């Protein structure tokens, strides 16, 4: 039995079972948590094959799907070093999302759990799709439940937030669909590997202007999803208005869809287009890094602040991808996971604070560290990870991205590194105003994390430390798959070629 098929089926089954279970009982939660945990354990089975052969698709699911005379599309999914950890991130965080929904969602639990299951189904599909059309379908499948979660369970301006989120994303996906169809019209396939084969065989050459147009079609969808400056207007309002579990998943997992799409499809399929646009994209990414950090600095709301900090961090991922260097791309993939863990944890904890205080305005807090030392410590660790402190996960990603940028074009690294200074400033200032200082008068109720609230926090912290201190558990498939990707597209910069040359000691010393 194919692991990927099981993995994909589990949340879908979960979705229907939750829908079918009685409304006012524990059963919807029970089914949701059981299927999502089962999915997590099943997904562990993906790791072994990927380590054995990271540069090719493993656990492949390749079924005939649509076979008409005009369109031939196969249901083609696979796992390699680039997406394996994103799948695992998804399967790890969905049970956490289910768990925290118990307390952080106040009403209509059943529907929420059902949507979480559907969301997981969509995400696994997005991250494992090899066929572009399949990718597109899952992209939309993942979008809808998130839209509903924001729109029906969100805060006061949920309608506005949900519509904005939806319209922005739809706008991009329409362009992506157009590009997929256009591409299909002259390659005759929508299969990622098929297209690459067509290109590499030389049967069809894609003109540079077509490459740019197609690239931009995909890029639009992904850039909005990341989001890249200045397409980020949907993000702060969506992150703030979404219910806590949805914000958690939106920031931790869903924001990786765009970055993943850039790396998986945009760059290898349209290397010419990617190359031609790279300078502009890098500039936008760097603007995003600094801009997001500066705007985060002056936010008055915790969730909004983390939202803008996300824009800054996601800029690092985009920068890494468009350095086209081994280190930069490795760092970008690593940063996707790291950002998922650290920002996820921050939003999760912000959610528990919101639950206690009914607000996430910074001015409603202050001096709560003595009241809730556990919460303060957990928040501190997540914050330090987010600030890129070595031994925690984000440092690895940021360092490699900066290293890649420095080797490609040193000034990029100089500007991007400014974001690292600013991240300390906005985070620590927020922490000080929220947790430190004298306890507020009159006393506010701020109980510490309960055992049930520690449950999702502890694994996140452990993974942050693990990813930060022993990267060899995660990095080998990433770096192998990226090497293959860069090689395939022959756009890696010269440095990598030099480095890949036999590294005899004398060759290293010569300069």
């Amino acid at each position, binding site marked *: 039995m194919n692991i990927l098929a099981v993995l994909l089926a589990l949340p879908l089954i979960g979705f229907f079972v939750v829908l079918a279970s009685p409304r006012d009982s524990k059963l919807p939660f029970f089914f949701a948590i059981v299927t999502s945990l089962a999915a997590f354990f099943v997904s562990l089975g993906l790791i072994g094959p990927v380590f054995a052969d990271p540069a090719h698709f493993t656990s492949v699911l390749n079924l005939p799907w649509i076979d008409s005379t005009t369109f031939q599309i196969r249901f083609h999914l696979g796992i390699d070093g680039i997406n394996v950890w994103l799948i695992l991130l998804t399967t790890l965080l969905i049970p956490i999302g289910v768990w925290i929904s118990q307390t952080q969602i106040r009403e209509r639990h059943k529907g929420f759990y059902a949507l979480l299951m559907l969301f997981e189904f969509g995400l696994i599909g997005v991250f494992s799709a090899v066929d572009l059309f399949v990718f597109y379908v899952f992209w939309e499948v993942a979008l809808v439940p998130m839209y509903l979660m924001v729109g029906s369970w969100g805060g006061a301006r949920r309608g506005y937030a949900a519509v904005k989120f939806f319209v922005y994303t739809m706008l991009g996906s329409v362009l992506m669909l157009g590009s997929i169809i256009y591409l299909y019209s002259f390659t005759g396939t929508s299969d990622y590997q098929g297209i690459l084969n067509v290109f590499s065989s030389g049967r069809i050459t894609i003109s540079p202007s077509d490459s740019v147009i197609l690239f931009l079609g995909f890029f639009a969808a992904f850039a909005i999803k990341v989001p890249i400056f200045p397409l980020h207007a949907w993000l702060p309002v969506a992150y703030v208005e979404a219910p806590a579990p949805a914000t958690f998943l939106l920031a931790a997992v869903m924001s990786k869809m765009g970055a993943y799409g850039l790396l998986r499809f945009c760059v290898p399929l349209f290397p010419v287009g990617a190359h031609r646009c790279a300078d502009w994209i890098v500039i936008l990414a760097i603007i995003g890094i600094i801009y997001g950090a*500066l705007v985060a600095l002056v936010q008055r709301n915790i969730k909004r602040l983390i939202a803008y900090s996300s824009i800054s961090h996601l800029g690092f991922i985009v920068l890494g991808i468009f350095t086209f260097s081994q280190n930069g791309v490795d760092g970008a993939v690593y940063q996707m996971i790291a950002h998922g863990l650290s920002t996820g944890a921050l939003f999760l904890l912000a959610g528990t604070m919101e639950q206690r205080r009914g607000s996430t305005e910074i001015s409603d807090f202050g001096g709560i560290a003595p009241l809730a030392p556990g919460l303060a410590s957990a928040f501190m660790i997540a914050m330090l990870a987010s600030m890129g402190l070595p031994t925690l996960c984000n440092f690895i990603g940021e360092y490699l991205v900066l290293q890649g940028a420095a080797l490609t074009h040193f000034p990029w690294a100089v500007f991007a590194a400014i974001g690292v200074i600013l991240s300390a400033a906005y985070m620590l200032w927020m922490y000080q105003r929220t947790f430190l200082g004298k306890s507020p008068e009159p006393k506010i109720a701020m109980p510490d994390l309960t055992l049930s609230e520690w449950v999702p926090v502890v694994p996140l912290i452990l993974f942050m430390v693990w990813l930060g201190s022993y990267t060899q558990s995660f990095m080998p498939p990433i770096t192998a798959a990226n090497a293959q990707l860069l090689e395939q597209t022959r756009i890696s910069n010269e440095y990598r070629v030099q480095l890949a040359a036999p590294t005899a000691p004398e060759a290293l010393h010569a300069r």
Partner: protein
Amino acid sequence: MNLWLIPLFPLIGFLLNGLFGKRLPKPVINLIGIGSVALSFAYVLFVLSKLYPLQAPFSEHYFTWIKSGALEIGFDLTIDRLTSIMLLVVTGVGLLIHIYSIGYMAHENGYYRFFSYMNLFMFFMLVLVLASNLLVLFVGWEGVGLCSYLLIGFYYLENFANDAAKKAFVVNRIGDFGFMLGILLTIYAFKSLDFGHIAAAMSAMPVETGFGILTLITLLLFVGAAGKSAQFPLYVWLPDAMAGPTPVSALIHAATMVTAGVYMIARLSFLYDHAPIAMNVVAVIGVFTAAFAASIGILQNDIKKVYAYSTVSQLGYMFLGLGVGAYSAGIFHLMTHAFFKALLFLGAGSVIHGLSGEQDLRHMGGLAKKMPITCWTLLIASLSISGFPGFSGYFSKDAILSAAYVHTPWMFWVGAVTAGMTAFYIFRAYFLTFFGKYRGHEHPHESPLVMTLPLIVLAALAFGGGYISVPNWLSPMMPFAEHQDTTAMAISVGFGIAGILLALFLYVMRPALAESLRESAGPLYTLIYNKYYVDEIYNAVIVAPLKYISRVILWHGVDEGVVDGGMNGLGRLVAGIGGLLRQLQSGSVRNYATWIMAGSLLVIFILGLAGGMR
């Protein structure tokens, strides 16, 4: 040799006290917190005795930390003669300060928290000094910065402590910005971050006469060093860092962490040797900071602030030593400074403890009789830092100033005058504390044995530490031509003694004269008393504009106005066109959602069925 055990003990101490300390009784917390450092110290002694005489560096590789393409960074630890000094200073002085803390922190809340942070600091500091490559060093570097943040903000109910902690972290981050860029360029130039590897590559390279990549790398790394070691213009965080408990000031902000920048440059001496322009920058910044900070120290009234500016100034001396090529003299001073400055701070802590928290020199005085041990040990420390012949500071400062005399005479003269200022402000503080009449309202008492014992041990080291010839020990790594220039020696000693005598005259013999001098100095006094308004200038020139730009221009202007407003405007335009379709709009989000979900599911099923039928 299992070098990893050295940092491991304090890490375990941190975890135990950090996770369970709340429920543990004090003796157990002490046992864990101090025992871990003691084990570490003992293990350092064991390792050094085994490896003596440590002719060649001894390295151990544990695991690959980061591997991406050809870039491979190992988690490697190395011990060589330079490391050996740092290890002994860090674990030895660290142990004494940990013991002292039992007494000093006895009545504080968060006792376990204090010891767990201190242990975490020891862990990162030991990683820093044992690192075999720049990135592992950076781990320790950032880690000690974190602990510094946590410990400066130890009294987190007080906002001045929180402000100081945040300032320390952010200013250090500015330095780390340079450090990180230096690391990135090192990879570019050497394809490795390994010290041994870079040293080997350097031996084949010519000295860089112009401004090339080596100069750029070394200058960027120096930016990092200037942040961590509080050199101009990034020194501003260190005086504020005195908001932390006094043992923290002694351990982190005097003896060990702040010397990390000096250590890093000495560690990379082979690189700096090839970049004379950078060397000059290091020397000039060092000597300027030494004089600048000493001048501020003269007029401070908070005893810890006096010592803090003194630390900034003494670190400047170390950088002067490095910059003129006398690396081992810089490290020598690092070591003696660790002894006498730790002693000064612990002594000050003893005074503060005895006066129930009073730190203002104007409310002290006449404590010599009440606190004899503190008084005598502080005298030794003060003589040592003043470079009084025979005391440890004399040897190390002399080594630096002699080298400066040969290298660039004007730097020697500035350094010598600064030595005079140093002696003056140190003895000003000393006399104001112990001489004259008691001017406060507390009941001064000598500190308990657990605090005075470390003082006595440190006093022995502050006196005798100069007889350990660090330059000789380091000579295989960093050649040092000893210039026993008697003229230079006599001049600097002369300035020092003059400073002591002036302090004696102004603060013991003619106290009224100091008062009238202050009035006649007028604006100059105000300028220096207010620390040249550097903080105010930074605030007005950097911090305030940054906040204004972020809030008014970027957030409200660009983000809400252009990015969001523009898109919403576009949306309204589309909505206007779409007005014809208004019939379909019921206005309920849930309604739309249901339609969209139903539609997409339908599409999926149809496609699925279509596939399935084939």
